[in-house]
């Protein structure tokens, strides 16, 4: 890890030791979100002024969080508050973000957009016009479509979890911390390398925008790696019974079943059906929530299944490490008995938002300003940007028409004895350069390039 990461590691460790300084609050983040529906609210910090190792020397920088904090999509939003707040408190424990020689503390304001475009636009306007936020951490999708004209006009950086949101007419929209769809493109390559005798690849995901696009990139990649794609179907996002979906897929006798970007809830049901209907091949997915899946299938069945959201207690990261400390800090604060117990286990989404947030913060530090044009140009000019998954860089023009994709190394995990463990970390750019023409042709044939959607 880089020196910068080590610094933050120390900070986070210090954060734990300073728990006596925490300002305990009775309101959980979820409750705050609920009572503040329709309004921007400040996310409570547990780091009191006395906890900071260095006093701030500049004005605060306001950060926005614009995502679903209630409703069915809240699972993608609420965890973002926890991870981002941990990062903010770690930065503020050093006095704030170092910008042009000043230590400027970060303060986060959140707005529940309920995954609705109109709400998101309302939230974006409140965050920008009332709170003067310089960066918005978001989930993306429809809210990104709805907010980008306003945010482009106001020049506010918007970080989406979804790379498919990147388009040339959205110069301030960045994404890519979440490694979709690059991981979906690399898994066929990984399986080809590990299991060269296998030939038949089946892939499914839901039929929303990101599912269609991500699956198109995976199919192109699988074909470029010599797989026979025997099944390539997007099931309806309204599907509640996956038995018929899996029956139809298994009728094509696949050797590897990829669930592409299937949402975690769907993945659990699909894997259960794969097990029940006797599928014996390999399972590969963007994200496997092993804890939930293992409530449905035996541990042995999931052995060797592959995904790309690593666990932060994986020995791969080393000990101590930023990842290990993040997990420790998260559990101490949001885990059982913690001051802000969220009554669930840590998930990949808790740190997913942090990746791009931290990249933007690195850009601000390097640029010495929060000016979005300078920050983004600075980031694009870097050969290496520290991310929580390792050194990354900005790219993506060939996929999305503009270099606004954060591209960290991509971990590939296999389930070992019921636990996901990193098996390899792959750099995307070189792999993609070698086969991009073939892949892009497939994506274009499926009508999923950025200029076709």
């Amino acid at each position, binding site marked *: 890890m880089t020196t910068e990461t080590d610094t933050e590691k120390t900070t986070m460790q210090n954060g734990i030791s300073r728990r006596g300084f925490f300002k305990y609050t009775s309101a959980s983040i*979820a*409750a705050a979100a*609920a009572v503040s529906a329709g309004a921007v609210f400040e996310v409570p910090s547990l780091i009191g002024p006395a906890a900071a190792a260095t006093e701030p020397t500049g004005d605060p920088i306001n950060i926005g969080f614009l995502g679903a904090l*209630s*409703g*069915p999509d*809240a*699972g993608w939003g*609420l*965890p973002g508050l926890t991870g981002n707040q941990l990062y903010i408190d770690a930065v503020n424990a050093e006095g704030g973000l170092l910008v042009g020689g000043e230590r400027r503390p970060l303060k986060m304001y959140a707005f529940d957009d309920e995954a609705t475009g109109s709400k998101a636009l309302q939230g974006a306007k409140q965050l920008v016009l009332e709170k003067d936020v310089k960066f918005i951490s978001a989930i993306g999708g429809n809210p990104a479509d709805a907010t980008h004209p306003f945010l482009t006009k106001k020049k506010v950086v918007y970080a989406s979890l979804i790379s498919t949101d990147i388009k040339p007419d959205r110069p301030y929209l960045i994404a890519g911390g979440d490694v979709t769809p690059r991981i979906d493109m690399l898994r066929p390559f990984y399986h080809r390398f590990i299991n060269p005798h296998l030939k038949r690849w089946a892939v499914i995901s839901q*039929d929303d925008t990101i599912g269609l696009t991500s699956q198109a990139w995976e199919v192109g990649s699988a074909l470029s790696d010599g797989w026979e794609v025997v099944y390539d*179907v*997007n*099931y*309806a996002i*309204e*599907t*509640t*019974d996956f*038995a*018929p*979906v899996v*029956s*139809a897929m298994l*009728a094509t006798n696949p050797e590897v079943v990829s669930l592409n970007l299937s949402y*975690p*809830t769907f993945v*659990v*049901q699909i894997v*259960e*059906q794969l*097990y*029940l*209907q*006797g599928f014996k091949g390999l399972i590969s997915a963007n994200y496997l*929530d092993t*804890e*939930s899946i293992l*409530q*449905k*299938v*035996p541990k042995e069945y999931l052995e060797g299944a592959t995904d790309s959201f690593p666990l932060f207690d994986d020995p791969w990261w080393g000990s101590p490490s930023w990842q290990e400390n993040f997990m420790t800090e998260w559990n101490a604060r949001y885990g059982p008995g913690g001051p802000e117990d*969220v*009554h*669930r286990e840590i*998930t990949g989404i808790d740190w997913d938002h942090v990746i791009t947030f931290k990249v933007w913060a690195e850009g601000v530090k390097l640029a010495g300003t929060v000016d979005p044009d300078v920050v983004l140009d600075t980031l694009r000019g870097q050969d290496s940007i520290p991310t929580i998954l390792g050194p990354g860089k900005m790219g993506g023009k060939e996929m999305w028409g503009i270099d606004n994709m954060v591209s960290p190394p991509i971990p590939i995990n296999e389930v070992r004895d019921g636990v996901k463990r990193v098996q390899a970390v792959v750099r995307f750019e070189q792999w993609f350069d070698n086969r991009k023409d073939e892949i892009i042709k497939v994506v274009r044939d499926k009508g999923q390039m950025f200029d076709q959607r």
Partner: protein
Amino acid sequence: MDLALLIQTIANSIVAGSIYAVIAVGLAMAFGVMKMANFAHGEFFMAGAYVVYVFYALLGWPFPIAVLMAVPIVGAMGIITERLIFRPTRSNVLAGFMATAGLAFILQVLVGQAWGVGLMRSVPTPYMGAADILGAKIGWQRVLVVPVAIVMLSCLWYFLFKVKYGKALRACAQDPDTARLQGIGINKMTMLAMGISGASAGLAGALMAPIHPVTPYMGHGVILTAFIVVVMGGMESIAGAVLAAVLLGFIHTFVTTLSDAVTAQMVGVACMAIILIVRPEGLLGRVKA
């Protein structure tokens, strides 16, 4: 579609039909007696699933006990709903509709506040593994739904046709004024109908908890299917609801296998429309005099 897939799809259809039947009969019964649709029926289903989540997944009670707990708990919710919503709004059908729609949202928020929103609650599968039926593989948890549906519907049939209170319920459904003249307490009967309706929805949700993603919003997807089943079957006909549930189970499963779930939903609604055009009273509904 080859033979193996055909057998698998038929097996999937039977299970789906059984699930729909268990969910829909309560809705049909409540409508039959009260002439009002309960838009919160899906949330009763959700409540049943959360009862299993709490007692089985969180507290570690045996799964069958947790399922049985859902019956009185959600049945009581049905009774309370009748007392607080349906009875005061009996003279205003629209108010009852809107009040139960509001109740649906209230239940969602309450459950979300209590156990969190976001990703699904994970309910372990109590009966792991699959039954092999003529080459079709069906999970034991799903297989379980079929006999439970049969037993539940048989008990309901026995109650309605052989037990005094059941006969009184039928009388209320057929002609409330005459039933009242015969000394049958309408309030008691509507309360009983909502109790049974809630209990059956709770039972369905409890059984489905290990299969269906358990979230505060899980009732949304269920209520549309339940209404289609009830309308197809004949709004007040429990037998019609069962027949329609089986039909819809086959339609949804076959179309999903051959196409996708959205098309399946469209075909299901189209079938409902055709049935209503050809037979406005539904499959087994009766024409009012």
